Structure formats: C-alpha cells, structure tokens
C-alpha cells in the first residue's frame, strides 16, 4: 500500500496525463459514434436492405480483434502507428457497430399507432422525428450508449500495447518493471472507477431525459 502512495507521489504527473488521455480516447469515439448513429440508425430502421448491410457489417467489425484493428488501421489511414487517431477511429467503429444497432432497435420499438396518431394530429415528418420518434426511442438508445461507453473505457487500455497513451500505459509499465504492482493496481482501480463514473453519469442522464419510461412501473 505504501508502495502505491510513493509511486503516485513520484509519478503523479504521468498518471494524471494518462488518466486525462484515457478519458479522451474513450469518450471522443463514443461521442462521434453517437452523433453518427442517429441518422444511420434511422436509415437502418427505415430501409430493409440497408438494415441487412449495416447489421452484417457491424457484426463483422465486432469480430475483428481490437489489437489487429489497431495494427491494421495505420496502413489504411496512412497514419503513424503511434498516432492516437488510430485508437479513436478503431473505437469509433466498434461503438458505431453497437450504437447503430441499438438506435435502430429503439426506433423499431416505438409503437406505430403512436406515430400514426402524431401524423393524424398534423405533425410534419421532421418535427415528428424530433418530437415523438427520437424521444420514444431514447430509453433503448441510452442503454446502448451505456454499454458502448463502459466497453470503450476498458478497451482503451489495449492502446498501450501499441504504444499509445491512456491508463494501459500503467499496466505495460508494471510488466516492464517485472510485475511491479503499484502501477498495475493503480491502472486497474482508475479504469474501473472511470467506467463506474461514466456508467452512473449516463444513468443520471437517462433518468433526466426519460422520466416517463419509469412511470407506470410503480
């Protein structure tokens, strides 16, 4: 335990940098994927052929091991192996594969009679999308967002294996120092804490955005 504190005292700055980088590398891809998944999910929901293509592509993306993807991307993107962009792109792809699916599922789950009622009341399509369809799909969409965020926080650690920052660096450091525990434990605790905080934040967001989804379940 005292080892842990002394490690933190001497390497505090590095740990903090790694933590901040970890947060960026984990959350930026989720944010990008979330924004992209709304229109893409809508297309998947709406057009059957798009659905087949998108969901198959998504499954394939998911089966590519993350390490392999991180090593392949520089060749495809023309980036250097150490470029954090590789991680952002890789994780965006994973998140997108998940979020497009959950967005489409969320939209599928909206009661069609409610949408018809909206149309019959005089909603034009765009307004109906934002005022009725999207809010009603939100509970499922946010559940997807929650899974993607937590998964990203843990997957970023892999980036250290290809020499990119984040809390994973603490693991590689520990192994290089002959299974020296303090950085390993620290990395573990911090990344788990980060995942838990992200999870809680999304649950809070969910409660704030969709108070109605718990109504009636009393």
């Amino acid at each position, binding site marked *: 335990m005292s080892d842990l504190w002394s490690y933190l005292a001497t390497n505090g700055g590095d740990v903090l940098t790694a933590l901040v980088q970890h947060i960026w590398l984990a959350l930026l891809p989720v944010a990008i994927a979330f924004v992209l998944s709304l229109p893409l999910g809508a297309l998947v929901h709406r057009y059957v052929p798009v659905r087949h293509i998108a969901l198959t592509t998504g499954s394939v993306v998911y089966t590519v091991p993350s390490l392999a993807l991180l090593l392949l991307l520089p060749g495809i993107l023309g980036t250097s192996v150490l470029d954090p962009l590789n991680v952002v792109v890789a994780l965006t792809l994973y998140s997108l594969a998940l979020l497009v699916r959950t967005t489409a599922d969320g939209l599928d789950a909206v009661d069609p009679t409610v949408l018809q009622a909206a*149309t019959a009341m005089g909603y034009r399509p765009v307004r109906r999308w934002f005022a009725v369809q999207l809010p009603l799909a939100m509970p499922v969409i946010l559940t997807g967002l929650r899974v993607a965020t937590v998964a990203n926080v843990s997957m970023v650690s892999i980036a250290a294996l290809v020499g990119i920052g984040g809390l994973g660096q603490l693991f590689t450091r520990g192994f290089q120092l002959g299974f020296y525990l303090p950085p390993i434990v620290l990395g573990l605790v911090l990344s788990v804490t980060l995942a838990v905080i992200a999870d809680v934040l999304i649950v809070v967001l969910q409660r704030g955005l969709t108070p109605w989804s718990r109504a009636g379940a009393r």
Partner: protein
Amino acid sequence: MIEFEGVTKRYPDGTVAVDDLSLTVETGQITVFVGPSGCGKTTALRMINRMIEPTSGRILIDGDDITTRPEAQLRREIGYVIQGAGLFPHRTVLDNVATVPILKGVSRRDARSSALGLLERVGLTADLGDRYPAQLSGGQQQRVGVARALAADPPVLLMDEPFSAVDPVVRDDLQQELLRLQGELGKTIVLVTHDIDEAIRLGDKVAVLANGARPAQFAPPADILASPADDFVASLVGRDRGFRGLSFADGNEIPLKTIDHGVDGLTLEVDADGRPLGWRGPDGLLPTEGSFRDGANLRTVADLAILSPAGAAVRVDAEGRADGLVLLEDLAGNVRSQQRERLAALATSNSNGEAG
C-alpha cells in the same frame, strides 16, 4: 358536411378496401360506420384526413376538395381518436392534450391552461394533468384521447373504435359522456365501430357497411331496427330489434292513467308524500319494480310495465311523487300505430327512391 364521391381505395397488393363509396355525412351529427372486420371502415375513415389517399374519387369537406389543402394543415382541423387512445407515452396528460394547439402556434403556456379546462370537460380531475399516460387506467386514457382531439376545437372529429379497448362498464360511461359532450359541442363526428349496439346508441345516422365499404343501409338507427334493408343488415342487427327500437321512442307519448286507476284488483299505494309504495291487492303489497321520470324512453317504460304485477309503469315527478300510470295495453296500441306509420313512411320513400 363531408361528401364521399365515388371513392375507391385499392391497396398495392390488389385488395379493394373501399369500392366506389358515395355518401354524405351531415354537419353537426354523429355518423357511424358499422360493419364486420375488414369491410373497409378504417380505410374509409382515414381517407377523410388523408392518412390514406384514395385511388380514385374525391372527398369534400364543406364543398372543398380535401386535396386542395396541405395535409398537416387539414389534419389540425380534424380531431382524431383511436382505439387505445394512442397517447404520447413521453408526455404528461396536459402536454398530450396541448399538442395540436401548440402545433397551430399557440404558446405552450396558453395551450396547457386551456388543456386543464378540457380535462374537466371530459370528466377527468385536474390533478391527473401531470401524470404520464402509463399512470392512467384505460378508460382515463381514452378520455384524454378525446380531450386531445377536441383541444384545437376542430369542427370535425374522426373516431376509430374509440371505446373498444375498455370493459363494458367503462364503455357505457364513455358513450354516455360522448353523447353529453356532443350535445354541448355539436361537432361533425364520424365514428367507426364493429359493435352494432354502439352504433345504434351513438349514431344520428348509421351506415351499415358490407365488404368494400358498400353501404348496405344508411339511415337513422330507429329505421335500421324497424326495417333492415336486407338479410346482411338484419343479421348484423341481430335479435330483439323490435324491443331495442323502443329506446328511440319517447315514453311520454303514451296517454297516462291517473294513479288511482285500479288494475285487476290492484291499486297503487303511496306514502304520505305521495311516493309509490307498491300495489295493494288480495295478496298484500306487491313491489312496483321501479318507476320512470319525464324524458324516459319507451324501452324503459315498457320494461317497467312488463315487470309490474299490475302491468302498469309508474311515472314519478322530480320529487319522486307518483303522478301517472302507463298501462301495458295503452303502450301496445301506441307501439303498433308507431310501427305502422314508420313502415308506411319507409315504403313510400323507398318507392320514391326507386322511381327517381
């Protein structure tokens, strides 16, 4: 007035749901489309607010072809109520009701405050306004659905099986409530149902539709009961149509006997205030089995007369004091002459129709 002019709807798969329908819905009345499942009622109804476009023919509202107006604008002038209400689950009751006024540009605040008034109008308490639909009973949801359709005060109301999803007791309440509201509002209502009893109760005019929305009969409910146009209508109307038809006749048309009129050795006994106690005779005091007031229909009166040991229904005034008797034989004579008049009138109008 809503006019269907030779309206046909053929779905892409070839199903002809509505086949050359021509029919006029009168302003300020409840017109009911009734018929078996799949006969095209919903399709016919939804063409009025352009949720479905006809394959051919046209629909006019107050003389104007509905296709001349933008869809969304047209729909905001037409209230729409569906089975199960179709409320927005993510909006509170008040916000649900305020929907169309807000779409029409009323401020959220004003729309919500008038929504509050509407809730009371449809028989809900104001404290339900902040609930979500999932926190209401089926009957309450349906009332909110009606309030939402009425919120922008549209002249026309379309209702597709509005009361099918609730139990019979609640349905009865809702039907009564609709008639009361319509008495106040006088909207042009088109209501779709597969329940002939509901059609007869609610309709000023009833269109009995066969497959392809072909009107087998389009007439006031009393006429449909008295004289179904064909076997299809007769089978749909079902049993007891003579007795059911009595509910459209006024119970006050029958000459009253005074309350001291004895029947077969029975005389009506009243208390000190004049309220009926029972029929006094050789077997002691027998029950009256109830009484009726001014405004009761003939079905109620006939029922009381049948149940009464004296064959006489007791009428009471507002204070509950007996003020007259309707005897079964007077009732029978009245029913006979009314039916004769009605059939004669229908026969004349039918032969005129055939001639013209």
